[in-house]
């Protein structure tokens, strides 16, 4: 058992998968000698060499397109997009090629690949280093999208992602890379199946649903609620496509008050999908409208990380509204 940060756990998991399966290769800007800007691929170059750990030109279209080709020909590429914000030059390769290959070819070809992307704000990164573009990918059939909130889940989901037969967008809450440590069991990791949420706390007063970087703030809000005598059930979605409808709908129907927390842009964010599904499926059980706590409909601001990101107080205010309704 080792207490490890999120970034160390990712590096370790990549290392273990590369050791287990020599089809697994890593590519991206600075992932080789440099070990990645966040050190997610630290030491892999020294250990596995340039044939399996490839520094690429500054071209996301090339990174993802190359990964599609590698995957089609039998490798298991894990591409790193340095910041999720940079994925857009590679967007076409991801949504038009990787996502559709299985369908275009009648399942003759698949693209078993992972695109890792450090995501989210709170690092003073401004417009181009803080975004949460998950909705673009959730809205693209053929892609699986996961967004773990801590080391243990990241390990289990990364194992599933690398071993999956189809392309997986693997988003990482970069703000939490070094702030959360969890006990990682020694030995081989246990894959976490996609579409399975994690219930982080149980209570009857209100349901909090979140994922990724916002989970940390949601758990802070939960701790504060506990202090104030309010019992919340907290769900970490972990996996956005597919997402765990059963768990969310059961809890939403049971409790009747739902607060959905995501730091992504408000309009048409992933929580809109959750809110709509709750309304469609369990409206008759609701005691209040599903309420979203989110980022804003603006480009991510440079100087106002703290105002932009939903924190415990904004979550508590939504809880208050749900209780009062």
């Amino acid at each position, binding site marked *: 058992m080792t207490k490890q*940060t999120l970034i160390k756990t990712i590096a370790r998991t990549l290392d273990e998968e590369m050791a287990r399966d020599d089809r697994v290769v890593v590519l991206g800007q600075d992932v080789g000698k440099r070990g990645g*800007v966040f050190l997610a691929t630290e030491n892999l170059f020294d250990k596995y060499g340039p044939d399996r750990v490839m520094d690429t030109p500054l071209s996301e279209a090339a990174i993802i397109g190359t990964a599609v080709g590698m995957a089609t020909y039998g490798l298991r590429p894990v591409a790193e997009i340095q910041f999720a914000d940079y994925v857009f030059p590679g967007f076409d390769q991801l949504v038009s090629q990787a996502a559709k290959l299985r369908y275009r070819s009648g399942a003759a070809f698949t693209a078993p690949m992972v695109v890792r992307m450090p995501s989210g704000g709170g690092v003073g990164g401004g417009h181009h280093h803080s975004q949460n573009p998950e909705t673009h990918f959730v809205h693209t059939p053929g892609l699986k999208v996961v967004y773990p909130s801590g080391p243990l889940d990241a390990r289990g989901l990364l194992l599933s992602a690398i071993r999956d037969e189809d392309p997986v967008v693997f988003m990482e809450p970069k703000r939490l890379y*070094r702030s959360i440590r969890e006990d990682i069991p020694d030995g081989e990791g246990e894959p976490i199946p996609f579409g399975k949420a994690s219930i982080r706390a149980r209570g009857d007063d209100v349901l909090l649903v979140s994922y990724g970087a916002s989970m940390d703030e949601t758990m802070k809000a939960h701790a*504060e609620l506990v202090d*104030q005598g309010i019992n919340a059930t907290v769900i970490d979605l972990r996996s956005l496509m597919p997402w765990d409808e059963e768990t969310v709908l059961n809890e939403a129907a049971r409790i009747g008050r739902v607060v959905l927390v995501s730091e992504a842009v408000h309009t048409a964010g992933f929580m809109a999908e959750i809110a709509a599904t709750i309304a469609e499926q369990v409206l008759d059980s609701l005691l209040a409208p599903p309420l979203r706590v989110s980022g804003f409909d603006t480009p991510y601001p440079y100087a106002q990380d703290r105002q*932009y990101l939903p924190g*415990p*107080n904004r979550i508590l205010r939504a809880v208050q509204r749900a209780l009062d309704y």
Partner: protein
Amino acid sequence: MATEFRLPKLAESVVEGEIIKWFVPEGGRVEKDQPLVEVMTDKVTVELSSPLSGTVVKHLHQEGDIAQVDEVLALIEQGAGAAAEAAPAASEPAAAEAAETGGDDTDGDDSTNLFRVTGDPDEGEVVQIRRPAQQPRMAAAPARATGPFGRVLAVPAARKLARDLGVDIEQVHGSGPSGRVRVDDVTASRTQAAPSAGGMPQPVMYRTPDGFAELERRVPLRGMRRFISQQMIASHLHTVRALHVDEADVTGLVALRKKLNAAVPEGGTRLSYLPFIMKAVLAGLRKFPDLNTSFDEATSEIVFKDYWNFGLAVATDNGLLVPVIHGVDRLSLAELAEATLDRAERARTGSLKPGDVRGGTFSITNIGSVGGLFSFPIINVPEAAILGVHSIRRRPKVMPDDSLAPRDMLYLSLSFDHRLVDGAEAARFTSFVIGLLEEPERLMLEMR
């Protein structure tokens, strides 16, 4: 974090109040206990003071708005810094945060990181969750809360429950914000007698005749006028009003009053006729208790009251007020005279307290001071009856020996709720009161 300033429940049965005046504008500084807003509730006006020192961030109701009890009236930012919420992070040096986080990093070479954690979102005083307040339930005739398109406001789960139970959600009183029906309300409605639907007639719509718009003025129905209007409508729609008129020969009372007042020392309170009338009415109510009742529509019960608090209708510059003299049975004639003056004076100067207009069991309206032969008073609901007292005039009267004599004559008009009081009973009550007024010495027999 701003504190919510809510409309308190100022007295039993108060469910709403009108915002008359904000003493502190938005953005203005307010000290603890400084008057913040003037609110008029059901004929009294109260000043509400700020519970804390700080800045009034926002008025959630404007002057003229009606606010429900427990609704938020204003947001007050505690403390000296008005700008605290506007820029919570401005004073926090991000560099210090980053250094702290960087120091925490023992796993990697921090110098390789382009970006550093800049701090937690929305730091500051933690929001305190207010437990859902127990909403006051209105006893009868709740105002139906409807949303857009006239649909009843209800949480979805309450609609579902109402459907399952066969409860008409239109008839359920909502205890939530804006009268929204909640699950508990549906459950509670099953245990209550279903109120009669009794379709309310459409109000009369006024249209200005062509060409007369220039010659008309429009004044919003506000404040006192609105409360009077509401009370009158309630009385008109929810009582079965009947009138009994009779006259009293109060020549003896006029003489007695003159004699008693002659003995009042300089500066003492001189007796009007009202204390005598109140004592006579008190004796009548003891004998005919049906007139000292209220009808509880929610439970279909008649409430008999073994206490006697008389409302006195007082015309003021702002409109009609009905302050109450409590415990008429425990006050002497002189004390009643003083209490009458006190209530009338405070009604005219606008210094009545909420308790001064509540708890009445019977009302008396003295129309005589203005003039007229007799009138048909409006019952001051939820009371059962009101007595109109008119001017005492010397008129010729045929005496028992068929002679004509100038006598001091007084018309009395008793307006009563025929559901609670029969016509014959009203007549007997009035005759009994008249008997006491015609022979005021008999009031001695009623003294306790």
